């Protein structure tokens, strides 16, 4: 052992800390860059008129994105209605029967579902809904988005249920309670905060999804409330406007992105806040 060795080792240790800290901070810079540039370019076009009026025909100045805002909420709302109850019950199933072999397989399938590229989900909704009905529809978009939200709700429910102490469940059994009431009155209420967080994160995720909507909900220049007809959404509008050749539309894409970022990040942060605040 040489004496001067220690100096080099301490230096290496410092070097490692500096390197790791530096790269960590560099990696969150894009978050601020993206949010900053989108806001800076978008915020000046946002006013009540932009939010509450309809798009102008191609290339004309002015107009708003009211149809897309309404469309986003309708489509996301329907897919939440589909995926929340199913997702919670599948989560209960996975956590309650976890010692069974076939449940292990279903768990892997849920992971697989979560890993399917969103564009492929779009193809599936196209094949299953659009093709038989022979036209694009908001409903097909909702179904596509619910495939994306479903695994998120399932996993949130399963994970939080696994954290509930077995004694709580046994106490309910010892009182002579039937199984379905133990699940509905004891387990799910105890897990409600965690499930709510999962739901909110899931909603914030599908609120920003575009790819599954390209050939399902498609888009619509007009305000449409019929879920069997094509419907516009904010992310779809951003894509179409951003890739168009009109500067006016580019600016509106930034404005719409500002609105979308605010909606998505607030739902996401609210979900995290809920989890922190009311966690048992």
């Amino acid at each position: 052992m040489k004496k001067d060795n220690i100096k080099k080792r301490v230096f290496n240790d410092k070097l490692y800390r500096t390197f790791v800290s530096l790269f960590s901070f560099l990696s969150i810079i894009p978050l601020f860059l993206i949010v900053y540039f989108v806001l800076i370019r978008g915020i000046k076009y946002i006013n009540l008129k932009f939010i509450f009026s309809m798009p102008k025909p191609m290339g004309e100045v002015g107009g708003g994105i009211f149809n897309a805002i309404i469309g986003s909420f309708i489509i996301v709302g329907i897919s939440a209605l589909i995926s929340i109850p199913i997702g919670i019950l599948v989560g209960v199933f996975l956590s309650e029967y976890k010692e069974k072999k076939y449940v292990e397989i279903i768990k892997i399938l849920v992971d697989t579902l979560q890993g399917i590229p969103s564009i492929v989900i779009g193809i599936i909704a196209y094949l299953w809904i659009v093709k038989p009905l022979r036209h694009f529809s908001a409903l097909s978009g909702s179904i596509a988005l619910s495939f994306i939200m479903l695994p998120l709700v399932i996993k949130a429910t399963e994970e939080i249920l696994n954290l509930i102490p077995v004694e709580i469940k046994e106490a309910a059994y010892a009182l002579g309670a039937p199984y379905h009431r133990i699940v509905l009155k004891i387990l799910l209420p105890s897990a409600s905060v965690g499930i709510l967080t999962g739901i909110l994160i899931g909603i914030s995720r599908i609120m920003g999804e575009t790819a599954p909507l390209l050939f399902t909900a498609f888009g619509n220049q007009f305000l449409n409330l019929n879920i069997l007809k094509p419907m516009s959404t904010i992310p779809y509008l951003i894509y179409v406007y951003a890739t168009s050749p009109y500067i006016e539309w580019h600016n509106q894409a930034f404005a719409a992105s500002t609105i979308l970022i605010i909606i998505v990040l607030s739902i996401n942060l609210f979900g995290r806040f809920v989890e922190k605040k009311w966690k048992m």
Partner: protein
Amino acid sequence: MRKDRAFKIILLLLGLLIIILLSGIFLSLVFSSIPSIKEFGINFLFSKTWSPVNNKFGALPFIIGTLLTATLSLLISIPFSLSISIFLSEILKNKFISKIFQTFVELIAGIPSVIVGLWGLFILAPVIRNIQTKIGVQPIGVGIFTASIILSIMIIPYSASIGKEVISMVPNEVKEGAISLGATEFETLKIVTLPFSFKGIFAGFLLSFGRAFGETMAVTMVIGNANRVPVSIFSPGQTMASLIANEFTEATTKLYTSSLIQIGLILFVISMLINILGRLIIRRFTF
């Protein structure tokens, strides 16, 4: 108890629903790909020609485009995501600050893909164009390289959070053993912690590679949409996902649609394999 029975049956049926859903997805993709499979066979994977006008379809340019962008983005992301994993689990001792930092990292994953694409198209691409002018490459701005940077930003949170989890799982006694022998924290990390968690970290890279593989919107907006085999990392290209996004609604013939769906099938199968493999490694690691 009839209600109890019914409830258990409902749970079981919903579990079954997941199996049916996944097999349904797979079978639908296979079924709709049949015309293309029949017409082109295995050559579909190796043909460079994608010509809707002549009804000739080959996926090679998009397979190469996808592999290139996904690999490049993974390589770019590794130093960053690994740093975050180590930073969060080993260096930041303050729990509160660590939590805030982690939230920032996760929020990156929360930004809608189309907004990252918008930013890439209007903010990042011009910067890349300037760089390209300086180094004497044809200044296009968009292309494989830009798409890879955008992708790497998007996948960092995934491998970072998995890496953080597995590194945190290394038992404290093992680390303290090394420290008590006089090792520095860096040496402990190098000799004890990283080898111990290597498989899990690898699985994290694998899963984020899978993400990059299937990511659609942001890539579609910045890759340049050129249906040919890219000649350099700066050339415009096309990934499998961006091709489907661009052309699916324009596909007029049955064979054209079927070829696009077959590309979807390839995406599905590969991402499924990557996912299952990654999850299996992580599961084995945690027990």
